[in-house]
């Protein structure tokens, strides 16, 4: 079984992102970039399936600029076998990314595609579902458990009321939630070894698809800030404030 894992280069989750001074977009100058955390979970799950003998090859792919090679190498260090960079000019929207990934899936023919449920930059939560629709494949989003049973993937999903388990025919698209696994840290020997693994580059403009932007960002602003609150010295004072000042309890 071959597994394809699409990943994304995003601002590190510890970075506090701010708008540019002209509010035209977010300020990404000199900020630390990382593999999107949900994508790391996807890579980890694929590598575990390989380690347990259920998968034979793990291929990571990203759509982005040359700088995204750094994140592909990080995924190779986590245990992926080879990498593909679909090189684009500028950042693409999820619809366009899904179109590029559709082409990659058609040429790679994986039995399973695992990707993060959302990227922590745009928080869109779209790419996996769009890819599944374009390929007319079944999907299992927000996975917290994944089991391969014959020609099916049995997936437990995190939904608003609790958990839901579904069974999807392979090939299928799975998107990861936080509790699917805890990704490992890459060891130094694996980081060194990753430098020798195959990383091929394809140009998105050669794929013959429309990847133009469908939306425009008019402005990016800080959210309204909350008025500074007060510190209380005791539970008694807190209850008094909640009853008489905020009037939220009686």
């Amino acid at each position, binding site marked *: 079984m071959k597994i394809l894992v699409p990943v994304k280069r995003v601002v590190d989750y510890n970075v506090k992102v701010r708008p540019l001074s002209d509010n035209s977009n977010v300020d990404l100058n000199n900020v630390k970039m990382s593999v999107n955390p949900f994508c790391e979970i996807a890579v980890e799950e694929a590598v575990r399936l390989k380690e347990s003998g259920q998968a034979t090859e793990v291929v990571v792919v990203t759509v982005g600029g040359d700088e995204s090679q750094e994140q592909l190498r990080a995924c190779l260090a986590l245990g992926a076998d080879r990498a593909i960079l679909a090189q684009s000019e500028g950042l693409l929207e999820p619809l366009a990314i899904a179109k590029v990934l559709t082409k990659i899936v058609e040429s790679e023919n994986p039995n399973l595609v695992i990707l993060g449920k959302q990227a922590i930059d745009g928080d869109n939560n779209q790419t996996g579902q*769009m890819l599944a629709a374009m390929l007319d494949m079944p999907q299992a989003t927000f996975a917290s458990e994944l089991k391969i049973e014959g020609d099916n993937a049995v997936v437990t999903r995190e939904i*608003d009321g609790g958990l839901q388990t579904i069974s999807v025919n392979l090939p299928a698209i799975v998107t990861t939630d936080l509790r699917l696994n805890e990704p490992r840290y890459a060891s130094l020997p694996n980081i060194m070894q990753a430098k020798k693994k195959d990383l091929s580059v394809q140009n998105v403009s050669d794929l013959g698809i429309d990847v133009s932007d469908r939306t425009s960002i008019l402005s990016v602003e800080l*959210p309204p800030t909350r008025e500074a609150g007060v510190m209380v010295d005791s539970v008694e004072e807190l209850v008094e404030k909640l009853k008489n000042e905020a009037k939220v309890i009686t």
Partner: protein
Amino acid sequence: MSILVVAEHDNNEIKGSTLNTVTAASEIGGDVSVLVAGSESSSAAEQASKISGISSVIHVDDPIYKNFLAEDLGNLVASIAEGFNYILAPATTFGKNFLPRVAAKLDVQQISDIISVEDPDTFKRPIYAGSCIATVKSNDSVKVITVRTTAFDASLMSDSSVTVNPGDVVDSLNNSSFVNDEIAESDRPELTAADVIVSGGRALGSSENFKIIEALADKLGAAVGASRAAVDAGYVPNDYQVGQTGKIVAPSLYIAIGISGAIQHLAGMKDSKIIVAINRDEDAPIFQVADYGLVGDLFEAVPELTDSV
């Protein structure tokens, strides 16, 4: 302008998220139709027909829609989409699951999780865990949108009802099947609809200790929430999680206990009306968004609070 709202329901009742989504549709302005797709879902369709401000209900009833599997629901909505300028669904796990499939089928870039309608083409939405708010204009001829339910009031129900028209079933792809649900049964209010929420963090230390959170919640008639750290540690189930990737809540009163206030948690609750934080660490970031902060040992403060409310 014609707008289709895809209703979230459980085959018996319309969920509150549907009412918030109808309000967002009304703010765009135009003829609002509500799609109820389910199985043995007549009562949900009938209830939908009484939502104020809508002009019709489309009801598609077939066993293949019983569990709202994304493949069949997505194809159904895409087939109905013709003639509509807007397709809206709530940004809950229900809407997030299938609506991007509809957008892909229609070749549209979906706008996720809108918090306001600026004009019929322009919407505000949070990005980077709510660190920034982007104003986004859609240039697609059809808009496919998920709606952050806490950002829009619920539509009212009216005494009269609109027409319910049956819609056509789209053949199933038959590539996905439902196995089972583990839905927590609780007498407490639902987290996203609760007026008061008491949330606990990693500082609780165990699921046993989490009972003091539950006791306070029950005294206040509140829902119980948790930070990611508390869920990851196994103190409470996943559906308690409030935050960027969990539930987005905006109650009248949010009491954060033993929660440090990582930005990913704040993203899920900072629109609450009144925020109370109880934490041992006076430098915890949660105090920067709290209206009332109490520095102290939660194992003393929480039982005392429970006794005095």
